[in-house]
């Protein structure tokens, strides 16, 4: 078969790029352009940009003031607030704005007669250590704050010596200390983010990123996987001392009440059976005990998640395009967190609202 002439290849290249553009715009997660927010000294999603999520869930979220998502009208409410800190679980790109835990909390609180607004500050990849360093810069942005809620899915965020490049790290040696690294966004993201988002170039951008991330192995096999060094196991007493150091430091960053809301990875399907036990239970128990010693409340969402599945048969995680019980919180999961935090607030209503 003779090959097509050059003009057909040139036309084909143009048309195929149009296909890439359309497929990327329809089926890829949008790239989020970021801009430096001088009020808090960090890069955050540019206010007004809409993010579409396709890889998990099928949702649209909009960045508002200071890059915060799901703010009604894009503006921070003026009154007293409950701030939800966290990572991609709070950022919640998988769920439409109205279903985010902070927005559900606001609606439920208003319905309960509480003049409180929920605000979510979640950035994918962030952890408690990042939040610790952000509490002070955000103090004037969020004021007045009634309660800081740290939504924690990975309990090992509290453990020392877990490498987390581009984020806060907790190191145990020589003396316990915290390190903060803010180099989250690559230069290409900062340079091309606006262009990629405004021209809907998610498809070509994905190709470029894959090309740049190519990892060639030309040597003969077998390939040996790189062994990841596991964090050194700590003696219980030493672990308690390290956790005390971390929580004392966290406690000292803000005068408002602090609450750690742990969202364990349950219930989940494994081997055809629904498992209800928390795989991180020992670490969670240690963190809970440390929280109690250091004036930080601890809320375990495990019982809510378990009873929700037992009553409805549904899971708090998983979407139409991701397995039930896996991945990020779905709309049910966000509502369960919001309800649990609201219960916590109502039980301590006088103490919290008297401030």
């Amino acid at each position, binding site marked *: 078969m003779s090959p097509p002439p050059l003009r057909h290849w040139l036309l*084909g290249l143009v048309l195929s790029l149009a296909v890439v553009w359309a497929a990327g715009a329809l089926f890829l997660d949008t790239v989020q352009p970021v801009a430096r927010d001088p009020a808090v000294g960090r890069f955050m999603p540019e206010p007004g940009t809409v993010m579409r999520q396709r890889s998990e869930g099928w949702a649209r979220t909009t960045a508002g003031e200071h890059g915060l998502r799901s703010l009604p009208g894009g503006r921070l409410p003026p009154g007293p607030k409950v701030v939800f800190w966290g990572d991609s679980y709070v950022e919640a790109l998988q769920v439409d704005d109205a279903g985010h835990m902070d927005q559900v909390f606001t609606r439920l609180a208003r319905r309960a007669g509480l003049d409180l607004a929920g605000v979510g500050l979640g950035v994918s990849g962030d952890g408690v250590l990042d939040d610790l360093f952000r509490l002070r810069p955000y103090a004037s942005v969020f004021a007045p704050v009634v309660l800081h809620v740290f939504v924690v899915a990975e309990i090992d965020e509290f453990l020392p010596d877990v490498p987390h490049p581009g984020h806060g790290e907790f190191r145990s040696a020589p003396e316990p200390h915290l390190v903060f690294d803010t180099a989250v966004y690559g230069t290409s993201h900062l340079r091309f983010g606006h262009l990629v988002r405004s021209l809907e170039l998610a498809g070509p951008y994905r*190709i470029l990123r894959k090309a740049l991330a190519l990892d060639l192995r030309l040597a*003969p096999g077998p390939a040996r996987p790189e062994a990841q060094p596991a964090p050194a196991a700590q003696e219980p007493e030493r672990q308690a001392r390290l956790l005390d150091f971390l929580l004392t430091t966290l406690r000292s960053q803000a005068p408002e009440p602090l609450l750690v809301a742990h969202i364990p990875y349950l219930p989940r399907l494994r081997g055809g059976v629904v498992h209800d036990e928390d795989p991180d239970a020992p670490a969670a128990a240690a963190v809970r005990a440390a929280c109690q010693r250091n004036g930080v409340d601890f809320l375990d969402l495990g019982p809510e998640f378990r009873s929700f599945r037992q009553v409805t048969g549904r899971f708090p995680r998983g979407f139409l395009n991701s397995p039930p019980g896996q991945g990020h919180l779905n709309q049910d999961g966000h509502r369960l967190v919001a309800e649990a935090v609201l219960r916590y607030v109502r039980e301590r209503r006088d103490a919290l609202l008297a401030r």
Partner: protein
Amino acid sequence: MPFWRVEFLLLLAASLLALRLSRGPASRRVLLILAGLYFYAWWDLRFLPLLIGAALLDWAVALGLARAGGPGQRRALFLAGLACRLGLLAFFKYADFFLAAAPGSSAWLILPLGLSFQTFSAITYLAGVYAGRLAARANPLDVLCLATFFPTLAAGPIVRAEELLPQLDVLAAPTAGDLYDGFRRFAMGLFKKLVIADRLGLYVAEIYGNAGAYDAASTWAAALAYALQIYLDFSGYSDMAVGVGRMLGLRLPENFDFPYAARNPAEFWRRWHMSLSAWIRDYVYIPLGGSRQGRARTLANILLAMLLCGVWHGSGWTFVLWGGLHGLGLCLHRLWRERSGRHEHSTLSGLLSWAGCTLFAGLCWIPFRAEDLPQARRIIAALFQGGPTHWVHPFVWAALGLTLAAHLLRALGREDALMLRGKRWYAPAALLSLVWLAVIFAAEGFTPFLYAQF
């Protein structure tokens, strides 16, 4: 070295350039051997001596066959060569099954890449020389070139010595037409494998891994998804292998011809993994007596051939069951055809036959995919009464729609348009789009070709 890795594309580009610049088929065969050895060593250098040693053994046995005196000596030599090849395959493929049966045993063996396919191809050489269809090669490089031919090294198609060796003897530099035609097949295979099959595989793994927890609709969707996954994975691989062969200037046998368009089990096996089913027909079924020794013996031969086909896929009972089910299906179809005779299908009977055959093939994939018989049982039970959890990934419907549309186009006589054969101005646009989409939507992580494990 998976075909979609950049390392492979670099190897292919270097091979094509070297073939283009080299003079004469002999030097091109040496280049192909070097490329094949690198292709194999990239996977595991430790098994390279095995590959070369087995090829040299084939060469020596074939030379011995050519020089042997009487038929008894030839037969003994042929059987010895066959025993060496099959013994090697059996050792690596099945020793684990028996060793693992010992209590407390943790022994395990790595199956050398593509050993099954190389063995079958080598047997065609030995059998060809033994039967006098092929001349024994005096030059060991000829046999080494057959054994290390990298487009088919990992998972076929099972290329016969009589198909490949004559082409290698006159191997010319690749032409622009070869390159385009090969690229056309390669791009189609890449899309099938990376975009559709691998994504279906994620869904299938979740439902099979939790057999019995998902409801009947989800389990039916997973059974359907696996039928699509294995077809698109293996036919995608075969498209790439045939395409790479074509780029090198060689014509390799086809492996698939729209198998889910089949209306009976016999037709299914004429369309599914065609190089294997033809090999089994010629080297197992016919030597057993084929259909020449009465009905009972014919049925027994069919059943035995399909059981061997099942066992070839793996040493588990699930593969025995799969092969046995297909053997039974073929036997029943043969009996039915003997009773009712050959006849043209009406539209309705054609549709019913197609639906029945597709359902049969789809259900047979359940034991094939299951890790063991209890898992297969749980999946089959869940088809009728599953658990409380429901999840059907919308991508399953998209993949089903695409596959149905492709089959429909073929049924309407538009196969050339579908396969972008002939002069079509939009072919480059379609092919480049398939490549870009494969880059963008390739599932994360390493997902080897399903048939590379057999």
